[in-house]
């Protein structure tokens, strides 16, 4: 026996399982979900534009080692404009996911949902047990630890959005709403977008996303994808400062290290905003120990920087630059160097007038 996860439950590592998810394990030599998919692909031999493998949609709900337990899903959600169906063999991760996205729950499967499935398999050589995270029929991640499942579900969803949500022009950015206007914070990973979003949410701003600015090319409004805020270990003290409690569940997101998730509703029942026009664009960069500062930049520079942080610029061909130019014409653009959270929030609030 060995303790897995951080919930203190003792689980067996053997095939004969004990504990609440025992029913998910399934018969010893039952084909894995991966094998089921491979068979389906071989049967039809045709590629599908969205799933990659034709027939996998039909395989949803038929077989696989997560197919028999209601606790494992599938559960259906609409997170802002993103429809999701999630099934996860690990009921503890599934339970956490349901809790984080409870306000987004649907009764039935939404149309064109991103389909995430977590199955359990064994390494072919070592027989070590592992989780595989599949997204729309494609294996995205192999996860060896139970406490790594939930972050990789989130990661797989983000991956699918970047690849397969063509309707929106996508920028890697946190987005918040204040006074009915969107403030976009484009940045590279690790630049403090999520931490800044948490700080501003605590000041009453409303949340659209900590990962994607989804811009409608027709209206130029940014649409919400209010995923749970994924806070990295370095920012855990900020959560304490914001009164979000020290006893949060911690997960492991591969090489990115420990993370925790904060549902936007933890900041208040009306913390999630709706579609709104972009009025401010702040390119942020975190420099620990520095005083927060902000400087205006030209719109042309903003277009070039937005282009660099876009996930699907090339899919829009020449239209992408025109769209970014139109967005920036209606917005004020800045470069923000962020430091301590309170100081940074003060600087941003003064610049934006929130």
């Amino acid at each position: 026996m060995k303790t897995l996860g951080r919930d203190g439950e003792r689980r067996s590592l053997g095939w004969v399982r004990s504990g609440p998810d025992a029913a998910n394990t399934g018969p010893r030599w039952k084909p894995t979900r991966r094998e089921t998919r491979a068979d389906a692909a071989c049967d039809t031999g045709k590629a599908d534009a969205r799933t990659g493998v034709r027939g996998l949609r039909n395989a949803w709900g038929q077989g696989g080692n997560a197919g028999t337990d209601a606790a494992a899903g599938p559960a259906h959600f609409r997170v802002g404009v993103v429809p999701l169906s999630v099934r996860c063999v690990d009921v503890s991760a599934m339970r956490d996911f349901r809790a984080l996205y409870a306000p987004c729950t649907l009764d039935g499967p939404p149309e064109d949902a991103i389909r995430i499935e977590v199955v359990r398999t064994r390494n072919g050589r070592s027989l070590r047990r592992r989780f595989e995270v599949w997204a729309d029929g494609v294996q995205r991640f192999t996860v060896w630890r139970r406490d790594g499942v939930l972050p990789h579900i989130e990661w797989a969803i983000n991956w699918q959005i970047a690849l397969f949500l063509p309707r929106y022009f996508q920028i890697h950015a946190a987005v918040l709403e204040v006074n009915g206007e969107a403030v976009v914070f484009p940045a590279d990973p690790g630049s403090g977008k999520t931490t800044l979003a948490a700080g501003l949410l605590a000041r009453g701003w409303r949340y659209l996303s900590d990962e994607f600015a989804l811009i409608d090319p027709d209206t130029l409004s940014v649409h919400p994808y209010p995923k749970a805020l994924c806070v990295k270990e370095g920012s855990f003290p900020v959560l304490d400062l914001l009164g979000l409690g020290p006893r949060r569940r911690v997960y492991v997101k591969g090489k990115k290290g420990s993370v925790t998730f904060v549902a936007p509703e933890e900041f208040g029942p009306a913390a999630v905003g709706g579609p709104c026009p972009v009025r401010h664009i702040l390119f942020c960069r975190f420099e620990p120990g520095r005083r927060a500062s902000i400087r205006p930049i030209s719109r042309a520079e903003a277009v070039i920087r937005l282009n660099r942080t876009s996930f699907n610029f090339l899919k829009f061909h020449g239209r992408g630059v025109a769209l970014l130019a139109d967005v920036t014409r209606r917005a004020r653009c800045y470069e923000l160097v962020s430091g301590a959270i309170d100081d940074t929030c003060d600087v941003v609030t003064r610049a934006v007038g929130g």
Partner: protein
Amino acid sequence: MSVTCDACNERMVTPDAARIAPRRREGLACHELDDEAVLFDNAFTNTYRLNATAYRVWRLCDGGRTVGAIARELTNHYAVTKSQALADVVRAIDEMASVGLVVAGTDDAT
């Protein structure tokens, strides 16, 4: 149009530079933003930002004006000497030509 001096590593305007009449390459999408511009090259999916001066130079590259004429026009708008303006225009057009934003011709051709 310009060469780099081996001794001082600075660009020197070649004698025939002022007679070249560059023109904007076709197929570029130009988005004017305040006094700057963003150019998108659809053929290579490259995006370029021109600051106010470079954008003015690029707009003047109509195939009819020589580099010397463009430099003279700039001296009407900016407080620079003719020689400094010529050197800067040559450098700007060199850079634009190297990434395909302008193509060169000579006033003989026009």
